[in-house]
């Protein structure tokens, strides 16, 4: 009878130690959200296979009018060739009351490893028809690139025109 009681006590103690260890790990693993919103790049993250580049100097030349040419450079950072790189570009307003947006598409059929390709878009950057709550809202140009193999990249440009 006594050995049974000791066994039960020991088993319960072991269980609590294990449970506490799990609890501690869970707490350590999920640092409070308060600590997470500070911008800080993750030095351990692997280099992406795809990269997008937009010249800030070129952006500075754009005007709030139609037919504004913008070149987007797609770079293959992987050691493998990439095919069917699809690019989608969206022009929208900082003022989200303006639901209007303009969409553009392009693709690069083949991109050898380490190579880059320049894709040219003709953008309509004239003011949106619907007015929101800001007098001079900034324009947002968001470019997303993806391949059927799963490589992705994103670039966002902010314009004050």
């Amino acid at each position, binding site marked *: 009878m006594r050995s049974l009681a000791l066994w039960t006590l020991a088993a319960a103690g072991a269980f609590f130690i294990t449970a506490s260890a799990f609890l501690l790990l*869970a707490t350590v693993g999920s640092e409070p959200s308060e600590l997470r919103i500070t911008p*800080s*790049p993750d030095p351990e993250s692997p280099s992406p296979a795809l990269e997008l580049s937009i010249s800030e100097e070129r952006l500075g030349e754009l005007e709030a009018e139609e037919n504004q040419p913008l070149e987007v450079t797609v770079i293959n950072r992987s050691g493998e060739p990439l095919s069917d790189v699809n690019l989608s570009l969206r022009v*929208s307003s900082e003022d989200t*009351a303006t639901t209007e947006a303009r969409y553009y598409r392009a693709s690069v059929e083949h991109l050898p490893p380490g190579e880059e390709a320049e894709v040219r878009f003709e953008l309509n950057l004239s003011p949106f028809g619907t007015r929101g709550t800001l007098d001079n809202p900034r324009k947002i140009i968001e470019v997303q690139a993806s391949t059927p193999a799963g490589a992705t990249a994103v670039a966002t440009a902010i314009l004050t025109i």
Partner: protein
Amino acid sequence: MLVILGIAVLLAGCAVSSREEAAVIPPAPSEGRGADLGLGPGVRPLSAGPGNKSSPSWSPDGERIAYVLDGYVVDKPLFTQDYRRRTARDLGAEEVHWTSGHTLTILAPDQTADTPLSEPLAEVPEIKTRSVYQTSSEGEIEIDRITDRVLAMTPLPPGGYTLASVIDAALENRLAIISSGEELGRLPLTGIEGRVTALSASPDGRQVILAAQDVPGNGPVRLYLLDFPAGTPRLLTQLPPELRLLGDPQWTTHGIYYIAGEERDSDAAAYSLYRLPPNSPAPESVAAVGRDFVPASVKAAPDGERLAIVGRRNPASPTNLYVLNPGSGRIEAVTSNENMDIKISPTDLAWSPDGRHIAIVARSASTAPAVYDTQASSLIRDFYNIYRVPAP
């Protein structure tokens, strides 16, 4: 029994873990400035992404923040992106106050413009009235329209009630008392000359300061004090006719503070911070802020012991947030603005309920184009966003 308890403890730990990992405001590594958001150390963003944000208001427990986003109202936990839309998108909301529990009180354009009730107002076309709404329940975007023909409103501490200055059908001033989705009653505001265009309450809710003008935006401003709810308005002082009031007068333990100045075209330098000492009809310029200080908005802390002031040290310096302790006369800059455009509307300044933080709205003032390798929804500085600033 012990085994069941152990499992419960284990599950509780996992539950806490998964909840904290959900929808945290994503970092913005491509902004490339580390913890520097252009407003100085200790400042934390409470929102991210595009959208014109304004009128921040903390929940009574300080865990969530509500604000106006492009004309509608949202609320969210402080540090996650779990936005919850609380109104229809086309409301045109101008101001929101988190008055109790899940209740948000909202000021939006008056919806009675086409009804017979608004006809008497045609005689005084300068008057722009609005309506007060309240959210009905958590998770619903349906809101209740409580009171129309409103000129100004203020939450009434210690919580749950809202006061609104309204014009009734006979064009008389009334103070509507609002709570739990309904108007509980109206107090007459006898003896007040003109229209009540601004009001605020003391921390204990027993005194209400009212500012009145013959015609809103025109004529001399008179400040009244009302012992709530049983008293009648008592004239405290009348400002010189050329002075215009900016925002609501603020009750502190050391007197009533307000910003006033001459209206000149885009020249905020004409405004000053004034104090009306207790039991005195003579306002005095607040020397503690400095002779050249240009105030834009002021808000008293929940305990009435400090003042948050958005302004500039002198007309040539950047806009910053300051905290003034009226008792000691000590003023301290709590932001160090590095090319940020801080909103200066009185509604864009809010104390947390515990008085430890102040919410402001700002975005980068840079006009140069910028490129990031992240989505726009993760960007902070480039759009008007809410920031939490530690208060001394």
